[in-house]
């Protein structure tokens, strides 16, 4: 192992890692709200709105992320949507992960016993209040787990944003390997950074999960 090289390139990789974190956090943040919107749309009685949400989820989950990136980045300008690469990464990332997240949220909500909903509704609670006071506390554990996985997926998938020339962690590592011919050193270093980022995320998930499990007395 060439430790001098590793020390030399660390600042470069840290900078790239920051871009990875930045894109991921922003995508996750916006993606969560879009996902909630999608879940909400699916509860509409007016069928075409439901179909729209289902169709969106189907198409977004069905097509590769990098194709979505390329189409928005290169197709966007022709409809007046000229995004810089990082913004494009955030936007596409958010709209992409939202489709998966809405399914995760829906699944968690459906895992709650229907008797609980009935009991709440029979007290006169509306749908929203039932969701907030009864369903969410009981489905939080599963929801946190499944959204947590998606957060991790999002961080890992942010490497695909390099295709629109964003220099994030993976692409920076590949470029440095291209010039130094030291794959082991550089991959180890970048793997280490991913471990730190994702481990931190896993820690947050675990804390949130433990909190949520307090409610799930079986």
């Amino acid at each position: 192992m060439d430790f001098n090289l590793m020390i030399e390139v660390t600042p470069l990789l840290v900078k790239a890692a920051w871009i990875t974190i930045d894109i991921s956090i922003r995508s996750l943040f916006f993606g969560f709200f879009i996902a909630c919107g999608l879940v909400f749309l699916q509860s509409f009685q007016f069928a075409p709105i439901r179909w729209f949400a289902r169709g969106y989820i189907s198409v977004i989950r069905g097509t590769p992320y990098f194709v979505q990136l390329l189409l928005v980045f290169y197709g966007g300008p022709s409809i007046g949507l000229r995004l810089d690469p990082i913004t494009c990464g955030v936007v596409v990332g958010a709209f992409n992960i939202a489709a998966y997240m809405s399914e995760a949220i829906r699944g968690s909500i459906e895992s709650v016993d229907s008797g609980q909903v009935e009991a709440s509704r029979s007290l006169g609670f509306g749908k929203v209040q039932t969701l907030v006071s009864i369903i969410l506390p009981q489905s939080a554990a599963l929801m946190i787990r499944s959204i947590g996985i998606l957060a991790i997926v999002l961080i890992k998938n942010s490497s695909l944003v390099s295709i629109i020339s964003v220099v994030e962690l993976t692409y920076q590592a590949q470029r440095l390997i291209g010039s130094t011919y030291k794959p082991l050193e550089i991959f180890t270093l970048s793997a280490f950074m991913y471990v730190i980022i994702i481990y931190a995320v896993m820690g947050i998930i675990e804390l949130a999960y433990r909190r949520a499990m307090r409610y799930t007395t079986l």
Partner: protein
Amino acid sequence: MEFDFTPVITYFPTLLKGVGVGSLVAVIVAFMSIVGGLLVAVISIYINKIVSWPLRFFIWLFMTTPLLLQLYFLYFGLGEWILIPAIFVGILGLGFHYMAYNADIFVATIKSVSNGQYEASRSLGFGHAATIFYIIVPQAFIRSIPQLGNNMILMVKDTSVLSAIGVAELVYASQYAISVSFRPFEFFIVIAAMYYLINIFMELGQVWLERETAYRR
């Protein structure tokens, strides 16, 4: 930009072969990651923490690092000692990767099965293991279907990462064709359509499973 789909037609058989390879990998990985994920979840919940610790560390490793790096380490890193063919490296890497994700889901859903179910089964004389197998796991599985669907749909598209180690799946096939023809968007659109087709089948499967299990909750 004008579109010219003639190169796509020329390379269509190669693309189809790519779909075939990708689907084969996906099917094996789906099986491996679901069964393995269940095993891991069950072991880490029910078995002594010390026994399951190495396993959890292994899962943790696959959870925290990108698939691409895992494949590189398995393919080139292990290359110093053993040469595993690329496609097996791909199946192993993807399999363990999604095993970790699925295990995480199963942990949550297994814990959400009420204790009364466990007791009812034990009181019939079923052992701990048999109870988990016949009673807990099926109920947990039913609750996991939407999240599993998510994971498996992600997984199908992640088969494209295998192109990095030279497995000739769909994206690999198209990369070659693109570098010859310089018609990227035409190919990307066709790739997207092909993945979407696969996805439709998977979604239909999920909808069917959800409907079949709706009254078993």
